[in-house]
């Protein structure tokens, strides 16, 4: 009964979303206040209904209702409660439901926090989000109904994919989706702006905090995914350039370009049509990612069951939403193109370069991801584009970004003196070079252009950013201690995070040591100054698996560093084997042991990794995420809302918070 109620709630939600997508739009067009007023209640109702459906599906999982096909496919009577609940989004149908739930959460949030926007503008934004939701609900109801029954009920469920039975996977998809789907907000703002022709600095200011929050969640989601893949897949890698990973990375790249381009539109009123295009692109790439993952056009380690009918539906949906948005853009954007009055030496130029590189990076990933498909479609055979392509392209594309990033905040808007910029930059640059040179003996053994560039770049970003903070405080009025504006703090945190990240990637990639060896209990192996002693192997019973567990004593000199317990688990329900690596995590290195196959004479194949600085990769990502959140809560966004309440079309040009350097 409850699954049917959930199904019914989903149908109602679709109808409400259709009303929410159409009525306020007409209202905004005809200036009819009553029609526009439908938007907010509809958004709240939709949230309630989708939430109801989501809870109904969770209930079916919690109570082990194997008459629901989706539950039977993704759960099992032995499955612990925690994973039963996270199994709700463990596969296709439930992921879509989560997607839709998050979209309605964002819509309700926009409805709640847009009181200060002009009524017609808010109505359009909420309506566009309603239309986006309509497509997803249609998709779910027609091709991927999570509430479908199978009568008679199955005796036993098939079990959740053991890969997904992990705490990391409980939080990774929701965070990722919050980020992904959050780009629907700037998208809706862009469409509303195109429809109304109101594409000024105020518009950029309204949509900016939403973009920042989405971007931060996406950053967190990607970092969690990378961390999960690192410890769960048992390969010791942190990024695989897998199509599914690329699907989340492309919107991130476009989103990074977008938050920088919005800065220019907000502060200077420039780059308007470009910001609109990026808003559309970021969301288009989110949808494309969903298409790639869900249609089965590309296969990867993450994607399981796929269905061409679903693919066709998403493709039609993409054509409608993205094709429609871009057509609207082609039609309306020429009117709002902004005259750019700027000089080559200005912060605008630096941000333009940022945008250029991030857009090219997103296009590179898109190309690399679609290339095998294109080759196949042209009948040239089947190929795969691997990490070498992406790694090489990224090193090349990100080098100028890293080189220019710390400098950009020092440069003034509109125009600046090259001499003045150089004068303020030479000291941090000299310090960074000095640090990189002093550390040279430490990394001499692995020296390469990549390593030298990476260490120098990382130091330069960190020193340049910290130097900027010091200078900002020095030039403030003495006596009173005040924090920097949140927007600026956020920028500093995020840039600092990039520095940490660059160092982490460079050092991990160069100095990681990996060894596949054959060990019998009692034997020892030495790697990277550590002795690994294989003590014993034993068998353990987990809640829904049996595990073979090895015990390794890791020591360095006379000190015991860690006891590690890698496992091989067998999940009897689907009869799948999982490798659970044991990791001793540290600030400057990880030690990673995973158990391979049993060999003859009681020996095992054992994989040992020594990974220096790998934590810095995720630490850097956390700094970037924190930066985005901090920046989103800048006071000026609230201030503009107050201002917007007074003027229907605020046109804020400069509001003093722009860091001017000197």
């Amino acid at each position, binding site marked *: 009964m409850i699954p049917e109620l959930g199904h019914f709630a989903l149908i109602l939600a679709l109808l409400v979303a259709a009303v929410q997508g159409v009525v306020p739009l007409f209202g905004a067009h005809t200036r009819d206040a009553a029609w526009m007023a439908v938007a907010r209640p509809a958004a709240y109702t939709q949230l309630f209904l989708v939430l109801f459906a989501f809870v109904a599906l969770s209930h079916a999982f919690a109570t082990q209702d194997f008459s629901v096909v989706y539950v039977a496919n993704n759960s099992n009577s032995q499955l612990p409660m925690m994973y039963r609940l996270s199994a709700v989004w463990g596969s296709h149908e439930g992921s879509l439901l989560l997607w839709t739930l998050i979209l309605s959460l964002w819509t309700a949030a926009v409805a709640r926090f847009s009181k200060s926007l002009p009524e017609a503008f808010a109505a359009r934004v909420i309506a566009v989000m309603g239309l986006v939701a309509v497509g997803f609900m249609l998709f779910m109801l027609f091709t991927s109904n999570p509430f479908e029954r199978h009568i008679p009920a199955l005796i036993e469920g098939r079990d959740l994919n053991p890969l997904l039975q992990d705490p990391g996977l409980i939080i990774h998809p929701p965070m990722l989706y919050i980020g992904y789907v959050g780009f629907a907000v700037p998208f809706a703002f862009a469409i509303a702006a195109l429809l109304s022709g109101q594409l000024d600095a105020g518009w950029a200011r309204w949509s900016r905090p939403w973009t920042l929050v989405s971007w931060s969640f996406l950053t967190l989601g990607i970092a969690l995914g990378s961390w999960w893949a690192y410890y769960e897949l048992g390969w010791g890698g942190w990024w695989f350039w897998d199509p599914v990973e690329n699907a989340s990375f492309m919107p991130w790249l476009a989103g990074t370009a977008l938050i920088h381009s919005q800065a220019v539109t907000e502060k200077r009123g420039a780059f308007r049509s470009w910001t609109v295009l990026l808003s559309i692109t970021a969301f288009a790439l989110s949808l494309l990612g969903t298409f790639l993952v869900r*249609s089965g*056009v590309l*296969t990867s380690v993450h994607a399981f069951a796929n269905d*061409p009918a679903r*693919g066709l539906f998403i493709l039609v949906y993409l054509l409608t939403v993205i094709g429609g948005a871009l057509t609207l853009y082609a039609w309306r954007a020429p009117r709002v193109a902004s005259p750019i009055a700027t000089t080559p030496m200005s912060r605008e130029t630096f941000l333009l370069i940022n945008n250029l590189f991030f857009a090219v990076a997103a296009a590179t990933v898109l190309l690399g991801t*679609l290339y095998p498909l294109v080759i196949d*479609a042209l009948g040239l055979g089947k190929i795969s584009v691997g990490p070498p392509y992406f790694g090489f392209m990224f090193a090349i594309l990100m080098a100028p970004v890293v080189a220019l990033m710390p400098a950009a905040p020092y440069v003034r808007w509109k125009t600046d003196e090259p001499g003045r910029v150089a004068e303020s930059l030479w000291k941090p640059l000299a310090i960074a070079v000095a640090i990189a040179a002093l550390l040279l003996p430490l990394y001499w053994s692995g020296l390469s252009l990549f390593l030298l560039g990476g260490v120098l770049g990382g130091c330069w970003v960190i020193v340049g950013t910290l130097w900027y903070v010091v200078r900002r405080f020095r030039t403030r009025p003495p006596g009173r201690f005040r924090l920097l504006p949140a927007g600026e703090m956020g920028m500093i945190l995020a840039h600092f995070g990039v520095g940490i990240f660059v160092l982490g990637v460079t050092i991990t990639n160069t100095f990681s040591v990996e060894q596949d060896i054959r060990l019998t209990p009692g034997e020892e192996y030495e790697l990277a100054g550590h002795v690994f002693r294989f003590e014993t192997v034993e068998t353990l019973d987990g809640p829904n698996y049996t595990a073979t567990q090895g015990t390794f004593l890791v020591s360095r000199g006379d000190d015991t560093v860690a006891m590690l317990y890698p496992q091989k688990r067998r999940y009897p329900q689907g009869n799948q084997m999982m490798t659970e690596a044991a990791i001793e995590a540290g600030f400057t290195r990880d030690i990673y042991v995973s158990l391979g196959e049993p060999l003859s004479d009681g020996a095992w194949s054992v994989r040992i990794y020594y990974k220096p600085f790998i934590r810095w990769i995720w630490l850097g990502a956390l700094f970037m995420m924190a930066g985005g959140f901090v920046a989103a809560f800048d006071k000026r966004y609230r201030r503009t809302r107050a201002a917007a309440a007074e003027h229907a079309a605020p046109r804020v040009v400069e509001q003093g918070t722009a860091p001017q350097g000197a």
Partner: protein
Amino acid sequence: MWRFLLPVMVFLAIAGFLYAGLDLNPQLIPSPLINKPAPDFDLPTVNDPARRISRKQLLGQEYLLNVWASWCVACREEHNVITAIAQSGEIPVYGLNYKDTRKNATRWLAQFGDPYVASAHDLDGRTGIDFGVYGAPETFLVDAAGNIRYKFIGVLTPEVIEDEIWPLVATLRSTPAAKAEKPAADKPRAEKPVVEEQDPAE
């Protein structure tokens, strides 16, 4: 003006490739095993662990090998189709019970009916891996000389059987010469089929 049209045109080009990608997918993934000898296997049957079933035993006849499992919901959907083929008597259908427990597998057969001559119990999925199984259900057509002639991924439909499998079976049976020559032309295996041909008689 044109530069504003560029994004939508780029997008349409991508959409075109995505559309083409939909058609390429996923059942046409060519199996490298087509027209090659089926991988060797020797497994206990589901219904009776004491009995074994192997590639050698099955030589000398065309047969379908259907990969199924009790955890596979799509296999239930396919079950009627498999039963219909088995009842037609045209070709024997063997099962490969993939990554399944014997208890669940026998219960499944008891509940839905057992269309298979016998099902090999591939507990650890090793044979499935040798056959390049992506998931269940999948169906292989093996000829009398033990070569894989056709592979289908996903739920078999009556159309697939009418349009693909029956014509292929008819061709195999009408050209016994080709059947006999094929393995002989296959150099490394030149002697093997001869040896194996004798096995069923044992």
